[in-house]
Every structure is written in structure tokens, then in C-alpha cells.
């Protein structure tokens, strides 16, 4: 099929894409040109995409590798963000440095994951899904109601940007980067890209490790895996904790980049669902698929929609006056998003760039069912 060949060709683009991502911040004229016509900083948007990519990779550990449906990843994202907030804002006495905060946020989220997972991971598929969903809501309300700690819906802010070690601070100006996170988006850009690459490298190795194979075994057939002597609960729980830790890491970066924990509503069910849709769209269990899915979905939400709205507004309303309800793209966004999800799952249910294992299975399984029917 033509589409498949196209996707396969896209799959060869990772190395050029990586190089582009690495040099993009130095293509200042390009960034400025894009800003001139779209009024949007692509570098800053890419930073968010990197953060969501870390979150999605975390979710992928549970859903893709281990095959457990997880509907509450946003809770761990939020826990990471709030731990960062508590450890960094001026209102608290801690004021830890950025790297320890990053580490503690991931650790705290992982602990929360273990606490949730230990009693509930023995539940089967959709019961576990609803438990994670419920945990997400409980977390959101706890963040909302424990005002003495989380400042309620006001959120913890402002979170100071990370400090820069002095050798680096001396080096940066020679590269044309201001040594201040608040002034130059490129510092956050490289920070998040760096963490993302680290996570990809880590997961790429884990995927092929003994543990990674154990996860897949649990996904494929719990009973058989248990018979082979795997300790199912241990595998599931470690996957759950790792996923929570990555989500916490992403949350910490999110809060630091935003300079605020935002409010509890930033970590609601809709966030979990968007990220879940991204990894399923991209291809479950596949690093490349996850990255592509996040790029498409978050890009659609954060980049394309404001872009189209801005253009429509300029055409329809001119300099003054408000936009037409029917001619506002954000009012159609959910429809486009929904239709895209439906069509993609219809014509490529294994996702855009599936892991080869899942793709093979699908086709074999399809053949068997076909034969049975």
C-alpha cells in the first residue's frame, strides 16, 4: 500500500530530524521568519512537545510494553510538577537546586505509583483502567483542596528557572545565548531535548533488556509468563513505577519551563486521554511511534489551531471586531481531532509506526480470526 511505503520512508528521517532539532535554535533567522508570519515561537512550542514526549514515553512503558490500560498518567505528571513547585518556590523553606528537584520529583511520582500499583495491579484490564482514572481525579481534587500546601487553584508560582553553573554561564554568551532561562527560550529547549534524548536512550536499552522482554511476555500472555517463572507483580509494578517516574520527570520540567505549577485542572483526565491517544496513534510499544504521535497531536493542539485561528481572524475580521463563531477553527478542533482518531484507527489500527512485534502479531492474529469467521 502506498501509505505504508510513505510511512516507511518517513521512518528513515529520524537522523535528519534529530540534527534539525539540534541545530534549530541556532537558525535564528528561520525562527524569526516563522515568527513573523505565524506570530508563534516554534522553538518554544517544540520545548513543550519535548516535555509531552517524555510524558508519553512514560505512559508507553505501561500501556505499550506491559499492556495495561492506564487512564491517569496526568496525575503523576501533576505530582511531579507540584513536588517541583514545593521544593522550588520562595514560599517554602526548601529552595533546592534544579537537578535534585528533578530527581526528587521523579522519585516522588514513582513512590506514588508504587503506592497505587501495589494493591491494584492485580485487577484485570478495564478495572485497572478505571482505578487509574479514579486516582487521576482523586489527585486533582487533592491538589485543589489541600490549599495550605498546594495553594489550591492559584497554583505554586513563580518557580525560579534553574541556575546555570558558572563555566557554562561564561561559555553561553560566546554562542549567542543569553545565560538566563527567562530571557532565552533556547536554554529550556536544550534542557528538555537533552532529557528527552536521555530518556529515549534509556528506554531503547531497557526495551531490549531482560526486563523489557519480561514486560512483553506479561503483555502477551500473563499465564504463560507466570509459568515460565516470571514474577508478574514485580514486572508490572516496576513498569508502573518507571512510567510514573518518567511522568514526574516530565511534570518537573513542565513546571520549571512554565514557571508555575499551573492549576490542578492542568492535570485532568483530558490530558491523560490526549497523551494516550497520541501513543496509540503513533504505535503502541514503539519509541518512534510515540514520538510521532506526540508531535502530531500536541502540534495540532498547540501550534496548528492557534495558527489557523489567527489566519482566519485576519481574513474575516480585519483589524477590529471579533471572529465569527462558525469560522473559528477552535470551535471545530475537537471534530477534526475526533475524526482523525477514528480514521487512523480504521485504516491503520496498529498505529502509524508500530513496533514490529505488534505489527506481526496483528497480521497473524487477523489471519486466524479471519479463518475462524
Amino acid at each position, binding site marked *: 500500500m502506498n501509505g505504508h511505503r510513505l510511512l516507511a520512508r518517513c521512518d*528513515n*528521517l*529520524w*537522523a*535528519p530530524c*534529530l*540534527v*534539525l532539532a539540534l*541545530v534549530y535554535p541556532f*537558525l*535564528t*533567522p*528561520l525562527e*524569526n*521568519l516563522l*515568527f*513573523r508570519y505565524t*506570530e*508563534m*515561537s516554534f522553538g*518554544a512550542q517544540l520545548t*513543550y512537545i519535548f516535555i509531552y514526549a517524555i510524558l508519553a514515553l512514560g505512559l508507553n512503558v505501561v500501556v505499550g510494553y506491559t499492556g495495561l490500560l492506564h487512564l491517569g498518567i496526568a496525575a503523576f505528571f501533576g505530582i511531579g510538577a507540584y513536588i517541583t513547585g514545593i521544593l522550588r518556590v*520562595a*514560599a517554602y523553606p526548601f529552595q533546592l537546586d534544579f537537578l535534585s528537584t528533578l530527581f526528587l520529583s521523579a522519585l516522588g511520582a514513582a513512590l506514588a505509583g508504587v503506592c497505587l500499583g501495589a494493591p491494584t495491579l492485580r485487577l484485570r484490564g478495564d478495572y485497572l483502567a478505571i482505578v487509574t482514572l479514579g486516582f487521576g481525579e482523586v489527585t486533582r481534587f487533592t491538589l485543589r*483542596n489541600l490549599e495550605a500546601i498546594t*495553594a*489550591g*487553584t*492559584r*497554583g505554586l*508560582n513563580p518557580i525560579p528557572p534553574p541556575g546555570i553553573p558558572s563555566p557554562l554561564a561564561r561559555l553561553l554568551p560566546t554562542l549567542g545565548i543569553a545565560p538566563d532561562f*527567562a*530571557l532565552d527560550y533556547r536554554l529550556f529547549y536544550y534542557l528538555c531535548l537533552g532529557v528527552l534524548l536521555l530518556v*529515549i536512550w534509556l528506554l*531503547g536499552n531497557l526495551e531490549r533488556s531482560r526486563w523489557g522482554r519480561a514486560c512483553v511476555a506479561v503483555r502477551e500472555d500473563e499465564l504463560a509468563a507466570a509459568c515460565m517463572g516470571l514474577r508478574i507483580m514485580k514486572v508490572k509494578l516496576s513498569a508502573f513505577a518507571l512510567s510514573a517516574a518518567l511522568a514526574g520527570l516530565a511534570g518537573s520540567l513542565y513546571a520549571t519551563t*512554565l514557571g*508555575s505549577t*499551573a*492549576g490542578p*485542572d*492542568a492535570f485532568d483526565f*483530558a490530558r491523560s486521554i490526549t497523551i494516550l491517544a497520541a501513543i496509540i496513534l503513533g504505535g503502541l510499544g*514503539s*519509541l*518512534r511511534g510515540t514520538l510521532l504521535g506526540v508531535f502530531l497531536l500536541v502540534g495540532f493542539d*498547540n501550534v496548528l*489551531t*492557534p495558527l489557523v485561528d489567527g489566519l482566519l*481572524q485576519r481574513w474575516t*475580521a480585519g*483589524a*477590529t*471586531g*471579533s*471572529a465569527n463563531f462558525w469560522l*473559528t477553527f*477552535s*470551535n471545530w*478542533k475537537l471534530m477534526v481531532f475526533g475524526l482523525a482518531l477514528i480514521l487512523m484507527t480504521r485504516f491503520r489500527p496498529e498505529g502509524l509506526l508500530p513496533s*514490529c512485534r505488534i505489527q506481526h502479531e496483528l497480521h497473524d492474529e487477523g489471519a486466524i480470526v479471519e479463518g475462524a469467521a
Partner: protein
Amino acid sequence: MAPENQPSRFTFGRGPLVAWVAVAGLVLVSILLGGAGVRPGNPHLVKIVSSLPRTGSAKAQTDTIVNGISIAIEEAKGKCGDFDVVFADWDDATAAAGQWTAEAETANARRAARDPDVMAYIGTYNSGAAKMSMPILNRAELLMISPANTWPGLTKPGKGDPGEPEIYRPTGKLNYVRVVPADDLQGPLSAKWAHELGVRRVFILDDNQVYGKGIATLFIAACHDLGITVLGQESIDDKAQEFKALMTSIKATDPDLIYFGGTTQTKGGQIAKDMVAAGLTCKLMVPDACYEDAFIEAAGAANVNDRCYVTFGGLPTDELRGPGHEFVERYQARFGRPPEGYAIYGYEAGKVALAAIERAGKKDRAAIIAACLAIRDFDQGALGRWSFDANGDTTVKTISGNLVHDGRFQFVKVLGD
């Protein structure tokens, strides 16, 4: 077909030549462009932007604000001193969230900070959103004028959280002003009005948001001073669908009045409805964020008629005289319907932005902020004569009390001085 294990991993092979050529091309173009991509800014143009929640449930209220700003710009005929003025209406909400989001507001602030033509930032609608954009715009030394933020902590030392408002001013300088009176005025005056209405027992609800909770807390403090018994306080979940059980428990405390610190969008209408459904016959008082037709529409006129009291910073449009009245007529003529409460603040914010740019006389953000903060006895707008104080707050102190009657807001009296 590729070997079995290959496609599941990243293939950091060479990749197609075309892609490399494209990347190299981008780099090359970028180098060739050099400084040409940077827009130096058009020396004859200034841009005023607004950042308000334009999708989702607050849309009706922000429509009226944007219309108000538009009228101010149209009256200036798109000119301000020697400059051409353009206005852009930005959205800090997303359809998925249905309300403002921290990301969108931050992105708007960064976008404005970076655009060399933007000289004034009108926003935000939600006090919580202002907390996001204020530090960014402060670093960019860009004038920010809010037509609707009423959380006192944004400007007034000691009236909000510890550290406010300094935490929003990393440069130590002021760049934020508001044309709407803050809640440290509205909250106590509402309580005083309730006392005058004969209320002695009150139950307090809030929506757990910066604005709603803030004004409810101020209302409670004033109740203690006035000797009104506070029977209880509860925060609602603005995503809940109904509050019948809550109203039943409130009914058991037998209040004279329920005060709801919240907005139409955070279920103000549902509160009014469920009071009736639970058989509560006491009064309801709500703050200025419910002063919009959408509130009566959401609550159902029959449920709020003659029992729902609404306070509002400034006079209702029908009561305005002089320039205010003229504004109402122009609005009616231009948009075919009467303005809602906040339209006039949108108009005032637009007028202030234009005046600041004109008085500065040059396209210099710092000079424009200085000109704006120096505004005294401003009377070009529709709110009468007022000044900015040292915190960037308006000296307008008019709070009006209104009652819903026959499906409309009916002006009752001016509260306070």
C-alpha cells in the same frame, strides 16, 4: 523486507539524501537570510493586543470586552499620535479545556514580549491567568492593562498572598495597571449591603478559584466585623453537575442569605437553580463576574427574580450619564445590542492604552509604561474622572448593587461612598 528486528528501533542509518539536502538547505537559507528574517518593527505602527478566554464558557463576557476595545480603537480612527494602531484579539483558552490555560496565556505573553510592534497588552480576564503573564511581561517592560482582574494581590501589598505583588515584578518596576476596582472594595461593600438588607445569618460558597475564593474570604472578614453570623463555608467543584445535597445541608442551617463567590462559568446558575429545587427561599448574592445576561440565562429567570442580588464594580450601563451614556449608545449602534457590564472596562482599557501611547509620543515600551502610570484625572473614557494610584490601581470606587427583576438586572443603589 528489512531484517526482523530492525524496524522496531531507531534506524540511524544515513536516511534519504533528500532529507539531508533539505536540512542543509534550511541551514544555508538561514545563514543567507542573516538579519533579514528579524522584523525590525514598523516605525509607524503600534499594535495593541488583548489576551482573553475567547473560546469556552467565558466567551460571551469576553466578546463584550473585545467589542469595547474595538470601539475605542475605531473612535481613534486607527491612529494614535503619529502611529497607525492595529488591534489583535488573542485567545488564552483552548477548546479542549473550555477555559483559560496556563500554557496558552504564557505563550501569548511571550509572543507579545517578542513582537517589537506590540506596545500594550490588554488582559487578562481571569486573575489566575494574570499570575502567569505578569512576570513575563514585566521582564519585557510591556504595559499590561487588565479590564477584569480583581484579585487584590496582583497589585496591593499585604492584601493577597505573602510575597505578592513583588513576585510578579522581577524587574522591581511596575508595568501592570487595572481599570477595574479590586475585590478588597467589592467584598466588604457587598457584606455591608447584605447587612442593610437585614441579613444576619449567611452561608458562604465559593468556586475554589483565585477570584471566587478571594472575594468570598473578603466577604467573610467583613461579616465578622459587621456581626453577621457565618453559618458555614464550602467550596464547590465547578465541574459537578448539581448541588442538591449541598443545598439540603445549607437549608438545615436556615440562612438569610447565600453568598456565592464565583462566576457564571463556575456554576453560578446551577447554584441558584438548586436553591429553588431544595426549597431554599433565602436570598442569593453574587459578585460582578455574574453580572452578565448569561448568568440569568443559565439560572433561569424564574429562579433568580427578586431574590438574587448582584454587585458590580461601576454603574450599570443604564445608569451612566455623560460620556458613559454616549458609549452605551455607540455600542448599541455598532453591535446592535446593549453592552454588558464589562464592555465599558474593555473600552476604558483601550482608551488608556491609546492615551499612554499618545502621551509617550514615541514607540518605546518603558516610556509608554511611565506615561500610563502618570495618568491622573483621566476623563477620556466612559467611567468619569479617575487616576491610577501608586500600585497601578484605579481610584474608581463605585460599586453598584443590583437585583434581578423580571429577568433583567435592576439597579438598586450605589454601595459605599
